[in-house]
């Protein structure tokens, strides 16, 4: 090799003190990081990846020791450095971005001050510290630097805190940044923003990175090369592209299969990881042998060493040749599966028209207008589809139609490919069981004169009719599912708090073993803290029971935390549909933008009151439903012609006359305009971080 790597880890053996002896957690770990390279370390928790990361910072404690091997940074062995030398190195040449920014930042110090402290400690940017801090904030996308610097950590969202930590790590222009699970504590969208930021920073600043995570999906986006660790051993290293295209080690294959994907059905087709790491039962040979689908008796005894199989690709598995053959085949079928359009929608709504008041028409002066017109959308199995919109937009009406309370005037609704009878009375027991409705207000949806046990037992009795004991058991199970004590069965609803009552309502839907939940504003009647609890509960239940949901809400923060896809409804028409990550990024439909700007957390003082147009009636049936209220209205065309459906991506579309590129520019201009107007200190860096706080 002509170029000397920045970091070389050579045959590192590392142990922690355990009782009398030492327990070895790293076994001959080898890897290098070149200048400007991003190296990812991935593995399950306990595999030793964080230990490696902290050894790059020469983090030593009495209860641990390097038993063998060397860690060479810029041609110096870190082992040989004394404390003052290390102090000069850490935070200066090598810096750390920790997992949890909340605990990493000093809570009692303004974040700007904390950054300056780093600079002063290393005598870096002398006399220009304040300027440097401003630049750093700029760099990490915290735009209004002056106000951010004056804030305390608790005044920042989790994403913003992590940006501050990154700024701190960058402060002295280090050669290497060690990132220890920097996005694990953040919600998905924030995580993506942070990853984007790190990517752009590396492109601009050219520092090396060691990125430690359990999430191979993140590494796919950011790392040049990846090292896969298992039980303290490096089992495979390869360039990122190579690793994903041709994973050789069975463990790597399992990790890749575990990455959550939008096309969820194929998630774990046969090669997902089974079991878990049992540290005390490791065989002498390959540590992965007990969990490996390819294991042979020899694997348990024969020590596996990294073996170069290809240019820059090494794997510690004696059977890599056999695995490669299998892998190629499954990779190609997977690609096919992703391309094909699958008809396995659990619910599809096709051009439905909904309205009230067909009964006793003669009492009215004119026939009422339809609440929902020509609405189509689909929900995949296991997916949460959120319908958002202001009150009166027809969200609940859609749920009523799906549930069978309101027969559509036109169009059809399919459930698992079968046409749903319009009214619940005509639906089979199986259908009634599969689709469960949860109402907004648990005070009204629970019979005040029935005990919780009775409320929950009725669906079980109706749909399954097991014996008395089985019912009692099922109720206890359901109550446990929603984290309520079994003793609650004897209580009446008015003896429960609002959140508990909503949990009971959820449990009632669960005891039916339903497949599709219709959640009609089920969080909006609850306190914010209770809301977060129930939201968390829903997220968990959705995973555990593989539930699909039609989630109706006006609360974008909740939607962002829960939904997979979002439909924006205005006066019964879908204005925008897309995956949740895309919905919250420009381009926006003008109405979506209005909704986003209406979220209190991101409203600015100088915001022109969009509501002033809210009372304006939509102009005509012919044109866009939003015409007349739209702040970016083009002109007569909006009133007279129905707008085209513009596709941002295959899974994201906007119904608007304004071209997508212009929608993006308008948002940018509007935001720029606003930030110019806004008084400093009244602004947040990331205008679309709706819901970020809820998660951090």
């Amino acid at each position, binding site marked *: 090799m002509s170029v000397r790597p920045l970091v070389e880890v050579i045959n590192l053996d590392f142990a922690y003190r355990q009782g009398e002896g030492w327990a070895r957690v790293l076994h001959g770990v080898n890897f290098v990081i070149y200048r400007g390279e991003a190296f990812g370390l991935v593995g399950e928790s306990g595999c030793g990846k964080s230990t490696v990361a902290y050894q790059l910072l020469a983090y030593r404690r009495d209860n641990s020791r390097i038993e063998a091997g060397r860690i060479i940074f810029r041609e110096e062995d870190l082992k040989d450095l004394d404390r003052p030398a290390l102090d000069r190195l850490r935070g200066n040449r090598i810096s750390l971005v920790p997992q949890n920014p909340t605990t990493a930042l000093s809570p009692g110090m303004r974040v700007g001050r904390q950054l300056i402290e780093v600079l002063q400690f290393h005598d870096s940017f002398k006399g220009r510290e304040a300027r440097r801090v401003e630049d750093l904030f700029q760099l990490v996308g915290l735009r209004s630097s002056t106000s951010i610097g004056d804030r305390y950590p608790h005044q920042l969202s989790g994403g913003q805190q992590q940006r501050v930590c990154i700024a701190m790590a960058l402060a002295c222009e280090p050669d290497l940044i060690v990132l220890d699970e920097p996005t694990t504590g953040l919600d998905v969208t924030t995580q993506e923003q942070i990853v984007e930021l790190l990517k752009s920073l590396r492109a601009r600043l050219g520092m090396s990175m060691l990125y430690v995570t359990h999430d191979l999906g993140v590494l796919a986006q950011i790392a040049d090369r990846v090292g896969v660790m298992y039980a303290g051993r490096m089992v495979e290293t390869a360039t990122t592209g190579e690793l994903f295209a041709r994973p050789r080690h069975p463990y790597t294959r399992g990790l890749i299969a575990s990455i959550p994907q939008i096309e969820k059905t194929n998630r774990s087709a046969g090669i997902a990881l089974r079991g878990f790491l049992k540290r005390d039962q490791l065989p002498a040979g390959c540590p992965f042998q007990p969990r490996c689908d390819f294991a042979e008796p020899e694997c348990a005894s024969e020590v596996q060493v990294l073996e170069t199989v290809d240019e820059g690709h090494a794997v510690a598995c004696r059977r890599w040749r056999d695995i490669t053959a299998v892998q190629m085949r499954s990779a190609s079928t997977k690609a096919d599966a992703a391309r094909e359009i699958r008809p396995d929608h659990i619910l599809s709504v096709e051009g439905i028209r909904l309205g009230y008041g067909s*009964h006793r028409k003669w009492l009215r002066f004119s026939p009422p207008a339809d609440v929902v017109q020509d609405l189509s959308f689909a929900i995949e199995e296991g997916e949460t589809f959120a319908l958002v919109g202001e009150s009166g937009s027809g969200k609940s009406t859609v749920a009523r139609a799906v*549930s*069978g*309370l309101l027969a559509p005037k036109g169009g059809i609704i399919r459930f698992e490919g079968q046409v749903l009878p319009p009214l*619940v*009375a005509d*639906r089979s*027991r199986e259908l*009634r069981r599969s689709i*469960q*409705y949860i*109402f907004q*207000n648990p*005070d*009204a*949806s*629970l*019979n*005040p*004169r*029935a005990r919780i046990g009775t409320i929950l037992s*009725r*669906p079980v009795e*109706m749909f399954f009719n097991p014996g008395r004991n089985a019912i009692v058991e099922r109720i206890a199970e359901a109550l446990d599912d929603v984290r309520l004590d079994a003793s609650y069965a004897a209580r009446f609803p*008015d003896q429960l708090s609002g959140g508990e009552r909503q949990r009971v309502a959820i449990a*009632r839907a669960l005891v*039916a073993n339903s497949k599709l939940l219709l959640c009609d504003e089920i969080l909006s009647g609850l306190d914010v803290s209770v809301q977060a609890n129930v939201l968390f509960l829903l997220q968990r239940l959705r995973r555990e029971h593989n539930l699909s949901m039609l989630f109706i809400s006006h609360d974008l923060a909740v939607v962002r935390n829960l939904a997979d896809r979002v439909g924006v409804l205005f006066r019964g028409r879908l204005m925008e549909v897309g995956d949740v990550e895309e919905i919250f990024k420009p381009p926006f439909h003008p109405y979506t933008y209005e909704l986003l700007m209406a979220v209190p957390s991101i409203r600015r003082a100088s915001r022109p009151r969009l509501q002033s147009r809210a009372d304006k009636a939509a102009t005509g049936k012919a044109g866009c439903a939003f015409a007349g209220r739209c702040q970016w209205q083009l002109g007569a065309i909006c009133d007279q012609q129905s707008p085209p459906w513009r596709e941002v991506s295959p899974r994201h579309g906007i119904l608007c006359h304004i071209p997508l590129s212009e929608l993006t520019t308008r948002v940018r201009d509007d935001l720029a305009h606003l930030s110019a107007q806004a008084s400093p200190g009244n602004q947040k860096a990331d205008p679309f971080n709706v819901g970020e706080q809820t998660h951090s």
Partner: protein
Amino acid sequence: MAMTATATTARWSALRRSWPAMPMSLRIGAVILLIHFIIAATGPFWIPYGPSQIGTGPPLSGMSWAHPFGIDQLGRDVFSRVIYGAHIVIFLSLSGTFIGLVIGAIVGLFSGYVGGWTDDILQRFLEALISIPFLVLALIAIVAAGPAYSGNPILLVLVIALIYAPRIARMARAAALDIVMRDFVTVAKLRGESAWSVVRRELLPNATSVLLVEFALRAGYAPVLVGSLGFLGFGVRPPTPEWGLIMSENRSLITFAPITVLGPGLMLASLVVGLNLFTEGLSRILGRTVRLVDK
């Protein structure tokens, strides 16, 4: 068993504790009713003379210590007759009202839940029944039943039920219309529960307070109805010592020995007053709890 006993004891002591806080009307009404029930239950065992025994003293002799309500034309002791008749009057009134309540509640709740044409037709029918003055309706029903059944206490019970059921049904329907709007009924509907099941499981438990008050209110007027029919000769057959019939028999003596009419009249009045006071107090208590539950 022991559990039940403790529960009952607990309930009694709870009642004793809350007694002073209850509305005055309820307390007075309860005492009056208690006296009536004791008389009805024990009267037949301690009355000085048999209810139909003749020759208990000189006829038309008026009020005396031996004969507090005097002696009628046939020489029967009116006091003994009135006391003996208490259980008859109370039984007829309460059972008639109860049957009316059951029928009325079911029809009303069902009508309110189902709605639509069924509700419309049922309501017009009930309104038609209500529009007929109840005494006229009772007479029509008794005449229609034919002479074979005249004086039959079961017929009387059914007639009371017939008069009350439509009125109770309207109240029940009004209650149902309110309850039906709530989501738990929708949940039951979505689950595919039958109308009967929804009425029984969801509506009835929530309409109990309304129905209880309705029952007490109607029961309070039922003795008057029984008495009226007896007075008119369409009630139970003589010589049954039913209060209305006793008053009717002795009405010719009203100037001569007024106590023979006033005695049974006082008993009837006190029963009705007791029932009404009790109802008034009960509806106040229930009204309060209902409000507490509904927020």
